[in-house]
């Protein structure tokens, strides 16, 4: 089901996220890839599951293949598509393919730069930017390709986009968000945020743009992970208070603590947003505890 249909019904939308495996899906169907195992578990707790597109520019199984695989298992995928590796022909073709294979939700992003990943010598494509990608996807839905040629059976998918409340200056990010909406974005997921006051400041402006926003959060597992994200993951800033709280906790108790911290954060921010997007980074089994703490359910 399309996420914008859920929004129309007034639902508070909860999504999770999994990353495709570094490798192929086994021909032996009794061997589930990790991403599928996680998604199967998540399915009971979330409306849909994002499938990342070679995230951090690390080469993996394609997000479309993984999305279709999960769809075949009855899980609602949010197919992520980035501008990094495909020109406008490939992007359009992949959007048509996605719709043809049953995908209802697509999240359209710029993509992390190749220098962040494991194929640093590859040619960065970025033929389009994310605003142009959204504009093009909206055009396909209207029945035209980017060159203006009519297409058969226009793909009707919900068009999601991302926004980063951590970005300074915030005004520039809001300008960008407005352009994405004008281009056709129907819902937004934010980059991981940890600062309630910052999110509040962001949402005070963003809500004027009148599109549903899901607050994104990456489950923080350890102070080392926070340090790594602060240094290496683009657009994320974990505040000291989070690092201290998880750092003070005994290693054996950190899973429980991570669930408590994430849930507490979501409980405090849920009234500001129309949904949440939880990125469990392999700790998908914490999602029930997080949602319990956040007093959220589908």
């Amino acid at each position, binding site marked *: 089901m399309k996420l914008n249909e859920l929004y129309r019904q007034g639902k508070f939308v909860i999504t999770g996220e999994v990353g495709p495996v570094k490798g192929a899906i086994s021909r032996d169907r009794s061997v589930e890839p990790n991403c599928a195992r996680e998604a199967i578990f998540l399915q009971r707790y979330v409306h849909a599951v994002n499938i990342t597109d070679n995230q951090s520019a690390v080469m993996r199984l394609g997000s479309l293949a993984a999305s279709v695989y999960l769809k075949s298992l009855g899980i609602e995928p949010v197919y992520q598509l980035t501008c990094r590796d495909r020109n406008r022909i490939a992007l359009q073709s992949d959007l048509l393919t996605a719709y043809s294979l049953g995908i209802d939700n697509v999240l359209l992003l710029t993509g992390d730069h190749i220098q962040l990943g494991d194929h640093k010598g590859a040619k960065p494509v970025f033929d389009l930017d994310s605003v142009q990608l959204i504009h093009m996807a909206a055009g396909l839905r209207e029945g035209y390709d980017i060159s203006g040629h009519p297409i058969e059976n226009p793909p009707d998918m919900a068009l999601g986009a991302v926004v980063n409340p951590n970005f300074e200056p915030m005004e520039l990010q809001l*300008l960008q968000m407005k352009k994405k909406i004008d281009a056709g974005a129907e819902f937004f997921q934010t980059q991981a945020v940890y600062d309630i006051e910052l999110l509040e400041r962001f949402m005070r402006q963003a809500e004027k743009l009148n599109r549903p926003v899901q607050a994104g959060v990456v489950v923080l597992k350890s102070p080392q992970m926070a340090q790594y994200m602060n240094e290496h993951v683009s*657009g994320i800033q974990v505040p000291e208070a989070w690092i201290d709280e998880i750092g003070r906790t005994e290693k054996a108790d950190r899973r429980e603590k991570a669930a408590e911290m994430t849930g507490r954060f979501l409980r405090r921010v849920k009234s500001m947003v129309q949904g949440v997007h939880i990125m469990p980074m392999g700790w998908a089994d914490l999602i029930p505890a997080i949602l319990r703490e956040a007093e959220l359910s589908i």
Partner: protein
Amino acid sequence: MHATIQKPIEEIVQNIRSDERVFIVGCDNCAMKCCTGGWPETRAMAERLQKRGIQVAGYTVPGPAGVSLCKLSNTRKVLMEDCAEAVAGADSFLVLACGQGVHTVIDATGGAMVHPGCDTVFGGETVSDTEVKEYCSLCGECVIEYTGGLCPLTLCAKGLLNGPCGGAKKGMCEVNPDQPCGWIAIYERLKQLGRLDLIESYQKPKDYSKWGRPRSLVVSEHEATFRFYADSKTVRNDD
């Protein structure tokens, strides 16, 4: 200007055969400014090659002072007339200039064997005697009217036309933490100019056919024709 950096001497030597007599050609414009192919570097290259057992037939930096090697008529005259004797004894040319200069030597000599002595790195602004910076990607379709003259294709690592990617941290690019985010620079400049309205409108995808190589330009007093791929664009300059 075309920014160049010399190839490591080992790489240059490796590509010259032991029985080959090489004539060295510099450039008195861009390569001179980059300290890759002015008179001092060209003279020094002759000594560096001879020290490594390479036979040097001669060397020159086509003058008059300040003239670019890529001005074919001048380079042809200097190599084929002024330096005719030394050039006649050369099997090949080592060019201490950009890739355009290398091709100019091919044209000037009627197709001689050439060795590039430099890597051509970008087209840039000479911001001081010791630094060249890139502000233009030579894309063939200038978009900087709406960005206050700062090129997003060049200053943004992803070449995004409609705003930043969201990956910047503390104002710095996700690709290189020492490089300011190009879009923040554009935003700050337009804000200062009171023209933030310029980046509010949708910028359509670029026409990359204009970046389709090889390109050429035919000019006259009245008009210029830019040729790219199978298409061309002619603009009058006197109406």
